[in-house]
């Protein structure tokens, strides 16, 4: 009857599990002395998907992210990133190869403005050396302007124009989280790792953040792996979910399947081990 009624039906998407492989983790184990943080975990992240990693506290989720971006080096197992197998990688190498992340506890430069914080995310992409920078005029200036333009796009995208020149230490927590996302986006990453992007936010802030995550995924085609405790958010946002408990993988699949899994229910409600 009305022309617009069908407008919002999303375009059919192929099953996330069949998309091109971006990252694969094979039989990874990580131990700190006698503490086994991760035991023999394997899963993959496919191009363009939103992949959630969930699990109760201490399940090894953040350790897993730290393994992926090279902060921790697993004792066993391999990581395949864009077709290349690697054992050891330093965080800055991961960054230069297109892996960006945000942190569970906001890790911004508190005394610097929003603009400068996001600009710092571009530093890996700046090519003019120190002497050019010192000279300033000419190529270094042009480069800075080009990067500033990118940063302004991100500021516009995240709707944080009003705090462009505000030192981030003065911002409320929800906005700091947004600035941190902005800094990660400034790297134009292939894979974006978000460690509890919505922790400590109120409902409205969560809704905003969810919208930004979806927009990043759709507009820029960025693959996203996120850790999140809010199950509503996880179930709504993600294409596939992997569930960890005590360092072991206990489920992996689409949200509705994972939600129905007895092992997951047990892990969250707690049964004796």
């Amino acid at each position: 009857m009305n022309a617009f009624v069908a407008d919002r039906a999303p375009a059919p998407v192929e099953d996330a599990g069949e998309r091109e492989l971006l990252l694969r983790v094979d039989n990874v184990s990580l131990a700190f002395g006698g503490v086994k943080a991760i035991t023999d975990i394997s899963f993959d992240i496919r191009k363009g998907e939103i992949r959630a990693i969930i699990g109760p506290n201490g399940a090894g989720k953040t350790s897993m992210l730290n393994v992926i971006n090279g902060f921790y080096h697993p004792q066993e197992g391999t990581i395949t990133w864009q077709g290349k197998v690697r054992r050891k990688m330093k965080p800055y190498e991961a960054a230069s190869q297109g892996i960006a992340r945000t942190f569970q506890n906001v890790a911004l430069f508190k005394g610097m403005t929003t603009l400068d914080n996001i600009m710092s995310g571009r530093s890996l992409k700046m090519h003019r050396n120190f002497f050019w920078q010192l000279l300033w005029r000419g190529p270094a200036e042009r480069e800075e302007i080009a990067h500033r333009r990118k940063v302004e796009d991100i500021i516009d995208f995240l709707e944080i124009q009003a705090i462009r020149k505000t030192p981030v230490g003065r911002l409320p927590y929800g906005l700091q989280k947004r600035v941190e996302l902005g800094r990660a986006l400034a790297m134009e990453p292939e894979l974006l790792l978000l460690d509890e992007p919505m922790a400590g936010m109120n409902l409205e802030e969560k809704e905003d953040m969810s919208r930004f995550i979806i927009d990043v995924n759709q507009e820029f085609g960025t693959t996203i792996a996120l850790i999140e405790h809010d199950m509503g958010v996880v179930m709504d946002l993600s294409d596939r979910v992997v569930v960890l408990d005590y360092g072991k993988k206990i489920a992996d699949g689409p949200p509705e399947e994972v939600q129905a899994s007895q092992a997951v229910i047990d892990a969250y409600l707690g049964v004796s081990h």
Partner: protein
Amino acid sequence: MFQGKKRHMVGSASASPRGEDTFPKILLHNAKVLGNRTAFREKEFGIWQSWTWSGVLEEIRAFSIGLQSLGLTAGDKIAIVGANRPRLYWAMVAAQALGAVPVPVYADSVAEEMAFVLGHAEVRFAVVEDQEQVDKLLSMAGEVPSLQHIIYDEPRGLRDYDHTRLHDYASVQEIGRDKLRQSPSLADEWERGFAGATGADIAVMLYTSGTTGRPKGVMLSFDNLIVSARNANIFDHLDESEEVLAYLPMAWIGDHVFSLAQAFTAGYCVNCPENMDTIDVDRREIAPTYFFAPPRVFENMLTMIMVRMEDAGKAKRAMFDYFMGVARKVGEKILNGETVGLKDRLLYRLGEFMVYGPLKNRMGLTRMKVGYTAGEAIGPEIFQFYRSLGLNLKQLYGQTEASVYITLQPDGEIYGDTVGKPAPQVELKIADNGEVMYRSPGVFVGYFKNDEATASTKTEDGWVHTGDAGIIADNGHLKIIDRAKDVGKLTDGALFAPKYIENKLKFFPNIKEAVAFGHERDMVGVFINIDLTAVGSWAERNNVNYASYQELAAHPDVYRMIEGHVDQVNRDLAREPMMAGAQIRRFLVLHKELDADDGELTRTQKVRRSFITERYGPLIEALYDGSSEKYVSTEVTFEDGRKGAIEATVEIRDMALHVAGKSFQEAAE
């Protein structure tokens, strides 16, 4: 001093309509005569992007031809929904060039309200700002069967939507540009298309926010807008060198006239802020020469200043207080050109350097030539504050139905309690019941599809009922007392003008909103809404702990502070013979902020008295039954449309009355 400039004025040199009697025609004229002058600016990516008049012509032409190929034709209605953006202003003129009628809609109105307006106006097209508006319109598509095409300015998040009826603004413009490239004669053809339009055609339809009942679609002709705008430009010597900031809702007549009608007729530049949160910064950067704001904006600016001064160091505060004292004493006299002693003049100069200048710079009013406030009465103390800084702030009285202007305060004839003399070509009279009536070239054509309302508002010979009660003072200035239907009497016969009392209360930075009751009752009772910014800052300094608005509002210390304010108001009222009988006997502090989303305020933030009377019935009864507290549960609507409830036990305080300056009986007469 502006006489010399006046000669260069475009389109506004004469009040009589010349060749250019529609906005598309004025656009052609401006592009020819003012081609390289900046017509629009918008801050984007942290930089002010600008367009010249000839650039604007190109933009509008391309979009207009794009709209035409989508099927927009004469007589169609096209909704404009969003914040102030150059492209949305252009869309209005682009539609007018095709003979279509733009209908700007309040972007923040809830879906139900918007659906009513769009459905009533029978819009076929809508030009909207972004995904939020697209979603809103799609959600109400069932209720607006006439809607065929939606065009959005900001493509973000809309990529996966079905684009058969949904279009990107840029792509519609591209259709137009393609066509123009293919046949260069199309530009002339497009111009010929509106050469035959006349000033009597409908230019725009604006839905009044309506303090009562459903919104009504006010139809304004090109003549209404253009003649009024030209008159106003002449009245205040405005020309193409002005800068204005377009930040008020586009659906409001004020913005339509200031940011479009007067901008086109005078040829001045319209600046669109980056977004709603950056207005303060953007205003500072632009420093508008002509500035318009409802009292609320001036109140907020003053509150911000006062709050910040409270936090300032002792020396700074002393300096501020001293020079504000000087300004209060002589500032207005100097502005009005009266004689002032040399010592005071020098002190004022020094104050300008030390305090007023930096303050004006903070507020972005350094270059302000003329500023207006309207929409509601402004607190006289607030008004004087700005004028004493040397800002030529004036009051005007207007209505959507009048294309804004009914009365204006001429330079140098400023009286805080009046709204000025009739605007050029406006006739004014007071009806027998005290209601203000006017007749002018700006008087609207009629309400869309509502002849009954048109007939009851506009008489056969063109006089319009304003619905406001007022008196014309001996000096020819109009004084508005209240809404005609709101002015009442207490049971003892004392005059009760609720707005008068409310405005007195609202001057206190701690009070954001007040609602007074008393008509046909034996005494005056008041609801008070605290201002969270001001009271929050006060609480911080005084170690008052609170977790929510509700808790702060009910705090005994807050009550004590508000009690002091109410007592001050009573003292003031006692001094005025007319009002002394209507002192506040009892008051309470509301547990929630009055909010437009809950229907308690209109979209222009005016109190909807009848709605509040209904909604808070139990609280009003409690004001009058002598109880000292009352439990209430109030339904609230969250921004996403869900509903919840706020429960509270609200305390009610009794006040002592002051002895009237004159005898009680006399005042009651």
